[in-house]
């Protein structure tokens, strides 16, 4: 894109196209291009390579504005660090939990999982398979049980067995379903009764293939349960997950992880510079 000899109008048009095609969205794409145009005019930039670097920095800054909000994660001795994973249907929550379990294990922490999705067919089985593979205990009740009861049990078990990290799986739910969103807050209250600071991490998983609805998802979930971190799953596909920019800009919620495949090792920490470079630089 920037390998051209002239910095002209066509460059800005192509730029807008690439941003929109990356799901950055109309609004943020317009702003990024306008900002670049302003800097180029103000500083009399002639070389497209310089324009490229300006845009790259612009985009990294946008994401860093959110990333610097990332709360420092403090693991206290004897207090389970509780991670609650939420998001709409099919985005990759359960698989991401397996990845997070493996991730924390690599730091030498003991991990436990809670099968909080008691609704979807074989959701408990799915998480249990991951638990077996990773040699991580899974607290589960029967299909159709009250998720609150599972969470209650898991909090007790985590405390009793001195678990460092407890990861709670929840059923996929559309943010448009009021009662399902209210259930998340109820689960949080149950955790808080056991551990004041729990859940210390509330992770929203967003599918990289999601378009502009991703921003609405983030906004609505944040209203119900105070999202602390975002994970973009399925970045190994062709979708770029550009909704990350709107989420960073509008919500200031840090994007902390990315999912890059279907194995337990397919998780990486999100880095604004690496991510921006992967877009089209």
């Amino acid at each position, binding site marked *: 894109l920037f390998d051209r000899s002239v910095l002209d109008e066509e460059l800005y048009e192509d730029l807008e*196209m690439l941003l*929109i*095609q*990356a*799901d950055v*969205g*109309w*609004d943020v794409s317009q702003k990024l291009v306008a900002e670049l145009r302003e800097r180029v005019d103000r500083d009399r930039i002639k070389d497209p390579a310089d324009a490229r670097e300006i845009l790259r920095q612009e985009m990294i800054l946008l994401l860093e504005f959110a990333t610097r909000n990332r709360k420092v994660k403090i693991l206290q001795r004897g207090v389970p660090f509780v991670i609650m994973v939420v998001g*709409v*249907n*099919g*985005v*990759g929550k359960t698989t991401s939990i397996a990845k997070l379990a493996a991730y924390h294990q690599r730091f030498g922490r003991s991990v436990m999982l809670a099968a909080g999705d008691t*609704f*979807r*067919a*074989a959701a408990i*089985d*799915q998480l*249990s*398979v*991951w638990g077996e*593979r990773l040699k991580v205990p899974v607290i589960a009740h029967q*299909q159709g049980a009250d998720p609150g009861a599972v969470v209650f049990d898991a909090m007790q078990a985590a405390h009793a067995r001195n678990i460092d990290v407890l990861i709670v799986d929840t059923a996929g739910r*559309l*943010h*448009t379903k009021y009662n399902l969103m209210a259930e998340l807050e109820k689960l949080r209250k149950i955790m808080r009764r056991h551990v004041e600071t729990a859940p210390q991490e509330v992770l929203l998983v967003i*599918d990289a*293939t*999601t*378009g*502009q*609805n*991703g921003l*609405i998802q983030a906004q609505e979930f944040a209203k119900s349960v105070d999202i602390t971190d975002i994970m973009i799953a*399925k970045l*190994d*596909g*062709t*979708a770029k997950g*550009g*909704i990350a920019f709107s989420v960073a800009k509008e919500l200031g919620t840090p994007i902390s992880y990315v999912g890059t495949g*279907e194995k337990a090792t397919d998780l990486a920490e999100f880095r604004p510079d690496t991510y921006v470079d992967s877009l089209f630089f």
Partner: protein
Amino acid sequence: SLSDRLNETFGRLSKKGRLTEEDVDGAMREVRRALLEADVNFKVTKDFVAAVRERAVGQDVLRSLTPAQTAIGIVNEELVRVLGNEREPLRVPDRPPQILLMVGLQGSGKTTHSGKLALHLRKEGRNPLLVAADVYRPAAVNQLQSLGKQINIPVYEEGTGRNPVDIAGNAVRFAIDRGHNPVIVDTAGRLQIDERLMQELVDIRDRIRPTEILLVADAMTGQEAVGVAQAFHDRLGVTGLVLTKMDGDARGGAALSIRAVTGVPIKFIGTGEKLDALEPFYPERLAGRILG
């Protein structure tokens, strides 16, 4: 909404007196913005707006007393036209059984919609067989079995040790022996760029010769919807689209993009997690939703 924005655009202009082509351009920018915000593909939007503009300029938006309404009317008509005016039913095979192959990206709703289609077709008096050909995802076979139990429809499975191509082939023979019709084959989610897994689908197709290859796509898919659909279509010959999770508030522009570029007809809409949450596709409804 778009109609609000167009009312604003034309409202300001009509104060000046006659509308000009430049004024229509302003309106077209709003149409473009609305479509992109609804996740319609960039290139599809470009072509679509060009077609609308041509009609708008030629068709009395300039002389209309209610130019915003006339423009919206044109956009709506064009959307319905592209989405497909006629509802296309599921294809009928030359000889039974009818075989439906469910394909798509990870998490789009294939397993759930395999169950929904089975229930829907049984309500029409058929005798469906579900086939568990996803041997990769943990508990995928259990998931389909659990759905089958809910609606009392048999599920053919061979665990996770067998090759999906063989499972599918054996399932069809089983269906023929037992008189099941249709056969609905659930497959693992996969990336369209995963060569090995795309080849697996080609092998399954060649083995069972499906009557329909249904691409199951999530209504909230963004710009990549076209690339994904095109790849599945080029490799397999997709015959229908199932648009899922339409009970959310995603505008669903992906459907327009997929239809415009691949010509694949939208056959069903998924509107919930329960197995009865399946609706036929109505172009006017989807057009209204995309427009916002």
